[in-house]
C-alpha cells in the first residue's frame, strides 16, 4: 500500500487543526459531530486556549486513483515557542501542507514554518484556507505566497476546512505529489522515537516513525541510546483513536507498549531497533534543544517538593523540550531551575503541572541563559543571575541574540521600530508584502523580548502584527548583575542581569513594583537596587500607620483573637526574608518592570 507522511504547518489560527479534522472526516475516521469538536488537540489546555501545543500523528486510509493510500499526518503547533515540536514533526515526514488563512495572508510563523520545511527537504503543498469567508482575499494571498515564499501562485490549493470545499483536490494532490517514504524494508528495524506519554497501567507509551524494517507484536526491541531491552506487548496506531495492529511497516507511524516502567529509559530522538538483529547505527535523532528561558519552580500551597519532582519527571517524558534540575534559594527554599523554549512554553508547563497533576508552583521571574567568558580563558553558561561568578573573574558577559521577523501593517512600523530601538534592537531590513504590509527584521537581545514584547507588538498593531524569531548566537554586552536588598538583606531570587544603561531605570521600576507588592510592616523597610556595592535606586515602604481597633468587644475574646490571627496570616502567601514577609507575587515583579 502506498504511504504518504506529511505535516500540517501554519501560522497560529490559520486552520491547521480544523483541516486535520476535515481530513479525518473525509476518510471516515471521525463523524460530523466529532468534527465539530476539534479532535486532534487532545489536551484540555489545547482546546481551551485554541492552540496546538504538541504535534500528534494520526493514520487514515484513502482511496485515490483506484488505489488505497495510507496517510500519516501530524498537526503541528504554530506558536514560536514550539518550533522544536514542528521540527520534530517535519523530520518524521516527506511532505508538508502549508496552510495560509485567506483573510490574513502570510504571517510571521507562516514564513518561519515554511523555511523550516524547506530546510528539512520536504515537498511543500501551499494551501489557502477559509475561502468560504466573505473577506477572503484569495488572489492577493496567493500572490503574497509567491512573493514571500517563492511558491507559484497558481499552485496554491484553495480550500475551506470548515465547509469541506476543495478537500478532495487537496487529497488527490497529496497522493500524487508527495514522495513515498524512502526507508529500506529489508534492513534491520530502525524507528525514531518522536513522542512518549506515561500511562499508569501500561507504563511508558512510545510513539515512533519506522524508518527501516518493521516492528511486530511480541518482538524484542532495544532502545539504542539507553541500551535497554523490552518486549513489545502491544502495537497500535492512532486512527485517531488508538487501534491495535500486528505490525508497523517501513515509513509508517504508530505506538509501542512494552512494559517500560522507568521514564528515564525513553528519550525523544532515540532509535528503537530489533534486539535480535540490531541495526549497526542509530538514526541521527534530533538536534539537542536549546532552552532559552529559565525560571525557578518552587512547591507552593500544599504541594511537597517530591510531588513536584515526580510530576515534572512525567511531564518531561511527554515534553522533552523543557529541562529541570534541583535548586535552592534562601528566600524560597528547595525547588527546581527549569529551562523552556520560550515564555508561552513556560506558562503552558506551569498550567499543565496544575491541571494534570494538581501541583501548585511558585514561579520566579524568567531570565535568559548567559555565556560568561572568564579571565582564565574558559567559558561557562549560567541561567540564573545568582550563578554569576565573582566580577573579578569575569572577562565578559554574553547574552543570546535573536533574529526577529515581524510582519506588520505598514502603519504599525513606526511604533515597532521605536520599541525595538528601546529594546536595544539592531535594525536589519524592511520589505513590503503587497502595498499595506511590511516585514520588519531586527536583531535583538532575547532578554528584551521575553516578557511583554509580544503583547506590545499586538497592541501596537491592533492585533494584526505577528512575529517569529530564531536564535542567532551569543553576543557580549555591557551587562551587569543588579541585586535587590530588602531591609538591607540581599534577596537572591530577585537579582537580575541587566544592561548597564538600563540598570537604573529598571532598578527604580522594580523597586516601585516591590513596594506595591510588599505589605507595610510595623517598621520602615528600605528597598535598594545595587550593582556591586553601589546603590543605584532606593525606595522605602513606610511602616503601618494605623492598626488598632478601639472597639468594644465585651467578653467575646475569641472573636478578637481570631480576627488578629487572621490579620497575621493575611490573604497572600508569604516568604519571610529576615524579618520581612515577601508575598510570592513580588518575585514576579521583575517581569513586569521590563521596559
Amino acid at each position: 500500500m502506498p504511504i504518504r507522511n506529511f505535516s500540517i504547518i501554519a501560522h497560529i489560527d490559520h486552520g491547521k487543526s480544523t483541516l486535520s479534522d476535515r481530513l479525518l472526516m473525509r476518510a471516515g475516521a471521525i463523524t460530523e459531530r466529532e468534527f465539530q469538536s476539534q479532535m486532534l488537540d487532545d489536551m484540555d489546555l489545547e482546546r481551551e486556549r485554541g492552540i496546538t501545543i504538541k504535534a500528534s500523528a494520526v493514520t487514515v486510509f484513502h482511496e485515490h486513483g483506484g488505489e488505497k493510500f495510507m496517510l500519516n499526518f501530524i498537526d503541528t503547533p504554530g506558536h514560536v515557542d514550539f518550533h522544536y515540536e514542528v521540527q520534530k514533526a517535519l523530520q518524521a515526514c516527506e511532505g508538508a501542507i502549508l496552510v495560509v488563512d485567506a483573510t490574513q495572508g502570510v504571517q510571521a510563523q507562516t514564513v518561519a514554518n515554511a523555511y523550516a520545511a524547506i530546510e528539512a527537504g520536504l515537498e511543500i503543498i501551499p494551501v489557502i484556507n477559509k475561502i468560504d469567508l466573505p473577506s477572503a482575499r484569495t488572489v492577493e494571498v496567493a500572490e503574497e505566497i509567491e512573493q514571500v515564499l517563492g511558491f507559484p501562485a497558481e499552485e496554491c490549493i484553495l480550500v475551506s476546512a470548515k465547509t469541506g470545499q476543495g478537500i478532495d483536490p487537496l487529497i488527490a494532490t497529496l497522493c500524487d505529489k508527495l514522495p513515498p517514504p524512502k526507508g529500506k524494508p529489508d534492513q534491520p528495524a530502525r524507528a525514531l522515537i518522536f513522542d512518549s506519554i506515561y500511562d499508569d497501567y501500561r507504563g511508558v507509551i512510545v510513539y515512533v516513525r519506522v524508518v527501516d524494517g518493521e516492528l511486530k507484536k511480541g518482538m524484542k526491541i532495544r532502545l539504542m541510546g539507553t541500551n535497554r531491552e523490552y518486549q513489545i506487548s502491544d502495537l497500535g496506531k492512532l486512527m485517531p483513536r488508538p487501534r491495535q495492529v500486528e505490525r508497523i511497516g517501513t515509513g509508517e507511524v504508530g505506538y509501542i507498549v512494552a512494559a517500560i516502567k522507568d521514564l528515564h529509559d525513553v528519550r525523544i530522538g532515540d532509535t528503537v531497533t530489533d534486539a535480535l538483529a540490531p541495526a549497526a547505527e542509530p538514526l541521527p535523532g534530533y538536534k539537542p534543544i536549546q532552552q532559552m528561558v529559565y525560571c525557578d519552580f518552587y512547591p507552593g500551597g500544599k504541594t511537597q517538593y517530591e510531588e513536584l519532582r515526580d510530576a515534572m519527571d512525567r511531564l518531561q517524558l511527554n515534553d522533552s523540550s523543557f529541562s529541570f534540575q534541583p535548586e535552592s534559594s534562601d528566600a524560597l527554599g528547595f525547588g527546581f531551575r527549569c529551562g523552556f523554549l520560550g515564555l508561552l512554553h513556560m506558562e503552558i508547563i506551569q498550567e499543565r503541572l496544575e491541571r494534570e497533576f494538581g501541583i501548585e508552583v511558585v514561579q520566579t521571574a524568567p531570565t535568559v541563559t548567559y555565556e560568561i567568558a572568564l579571565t582564565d580563558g574558559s567559558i561557562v553558561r549560567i541561567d540564573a543571575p545568582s550563578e554569576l561568578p565573582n566580577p573579578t573573574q569575569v572577562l565578559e558577559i554574553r547574552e543570546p541574540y535573536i533574529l526577529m521577523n515581524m510582519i506588520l501593517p505598514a502603519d504599525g512600523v513606526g511604533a515597532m521600530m521605536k520599541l525595538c530601538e528601546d529594546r536595544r534592537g539592531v535594525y536589519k531590513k524592511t520589505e513590503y508584502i503587497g502595498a499595506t504590509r511590511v516585514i520588519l527584521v531586527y536583531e535583538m537581545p532575547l532578554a528584551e523580548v521575553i516578557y511583554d514584547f509580544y503583547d506590545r507588538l499586538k497592541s501596537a498593531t491592533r492585533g494584526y502584527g505577528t512575529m517569529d524569531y530564531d536564535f542567532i548566537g551569543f553576543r557580549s554586552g555591557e551587562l551587569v548583575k543588579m541585586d535587590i536588598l530588602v531591609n538591607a538583606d540581599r534577596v537572591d531570587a530577585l537579582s537580575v542581569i541587566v544592561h548597564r544603561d538600563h540598570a537604573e531605570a529598571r532598578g527604580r521600576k522594580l523597586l516601585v513594583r516591590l513596594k506595591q507588592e510588599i505589605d507595610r510592616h510595623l517598621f520602615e523597610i528600605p528597598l535598594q537596587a545595587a550593582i556591586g556595592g553601589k546603590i543605584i535606586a532606593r525606595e522605602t515602604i513606610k511602616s503601618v500607620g494605623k492598626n488598632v481597633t478601639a472597639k468594644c468587644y465585651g467578653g467575646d475574646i475569641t472573636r478578637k483573637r481570631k480576627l488578629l490571627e487572621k490579620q497575621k496570616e493575611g490573604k497572600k502567601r508569604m516568604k519571610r526574608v529576615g524579618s520581612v514577609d515577601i508575598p510570592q507575587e513580588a518575585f514576579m515583579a521583575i517581569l513586569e518592570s521590563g521596559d
Partner: protein
Amino acid sequence: MMQTNPGHLTPQMLPKAMAEGLYVHVPFCFHKCHYCDFYSITRQDEGRMEKFVERLLREAEVWERSVAGQSNGLRTVFFGGGTPSLLPLEMMRKILQGLKLRFDLSAVDEWTVEVNPATATLEYCQMLKQEGVNRLSFGAQSFSVNELATLERHHEPGQVSESLQLAKRAGFERLNIDLIYAIPGQTLESWKHSLEMGVALGTGHISCYGLTYEPNTPMAVKKRLGVVKGAEESLELEMFRHTRRRLAEVGWPAYEISNYAKKGEECRHNLMYWRGGNYIGLGPSGASHMEGWRWRNRPHLREWEEAVDEGRLAAVEVEQLSAEQRARELGMLMLRLCRGVNYEEFAGRMGMDGRALFSGVVQRLTKHGLLEGDQSGFWLSEGGLAVADAIAAELLRG
C-alpha cells in the same frame, strides 16, 4: 485547640474554679443602630420579654449548682445588650432579685447596667440602685445631631445629660458614657466638641470607641456601596491621639485602648476581661471564660430558650486553649492595658514566665520603638499604640 460538640458543654466538664464576673445579655433594642453587630432583636412584646426573664433565671440555676457559680467568687456583674433598660421596671427587678437568690453576690463590688439615654426615668434608676446596682453606663455616642443620624441612633444629644441628672438624683456615683469617633463625615473639630461635652458631664469614666464597619451591618454595606465614606486613617489616628491627650489633661487618663477614667473609677468588670479572669455569660450570645475554656451562648433568642428549657447550656464555639495559646492570648489582652503585660501578674494568672515566652517579640519590637519595658513587664509605646493590633498579632504568633 479542642472543639467540643456544641450544646454538650456542661458546667461539670469545666475546671473547678470560681467565676469572678457575671455578664447578662439582654437582647432587646427598640431600633437597630446601623453600625451595631451585637445580638439583639427589635420586635419584642412584653410576653417575649417575660419569657426571656424567666429563662434567664433558669439558665442561672444551671450554674447555681456548679463550682463556678456557687461560692462567693463573684466580684462584678455587668448587664449589657441590647438595651437592658428596655426591660420594664418590674421585669428588671425580677432579674436582679432572682440573680441574688441564685448566686452569692455578697462580694460583688461593681454592678453595672447599660442604659439608653432616651428612656431612663428616675423611678427606674431608683429601683436599680435599690436592688444593688452601683454603676450605670450610657450610650451617648455623639453630641452631634447629624452624627447620631448617620449612626441611626434614636436619641437627642440633650437627653444624655438629663439621664445623668436622674441617675445622680437616684444616688449613682459611678457613671460612664460611651462615645464613638471616626463617624463618616465627622471632623476633628466635631469630635473635639463631643469629647468636651462628655468631659463636661463629669462622669469620671468615658469609653471612646472608633467606629468599625462590622460585616453585614447596614453601615458596612453603605460603605461598600459608597453611600458613606470611612474616615481617613490619619484622621482617625489624630482623633485617637487627641482623645488620649485631652483626657489625660483633665485627669481621666487612658487605662486601656478605648477606656479612660479618673483614678479608682476604672471599670473592674472590663479589667477582669483583660486580665484573663473567669466569667459566666448569661443570655443569648453571652460569652464565657473559665480557665482557658471559652464559649458563647447561641446568638439566637429562640434557640437559646430551647436549650434552657431542656436544662442545657446553649454553648457554641466551645474551645479549650492549650497552655501556650492561653498565655499568648493573655499577652494580647494585657497589651491593651496601659500598664501592659506585667510579668508578675502574668505569672500569677498563668503560672508561666512571660519574659521567656515573649522575649523575641519584645526585643524586636522594642528595637523598632513600638514597645517599652523594664524588669516588671512591657507596654505599648506612644508609637506602638497606633498599631496595637498588629503588635497583639505578633504576640499571638510569637
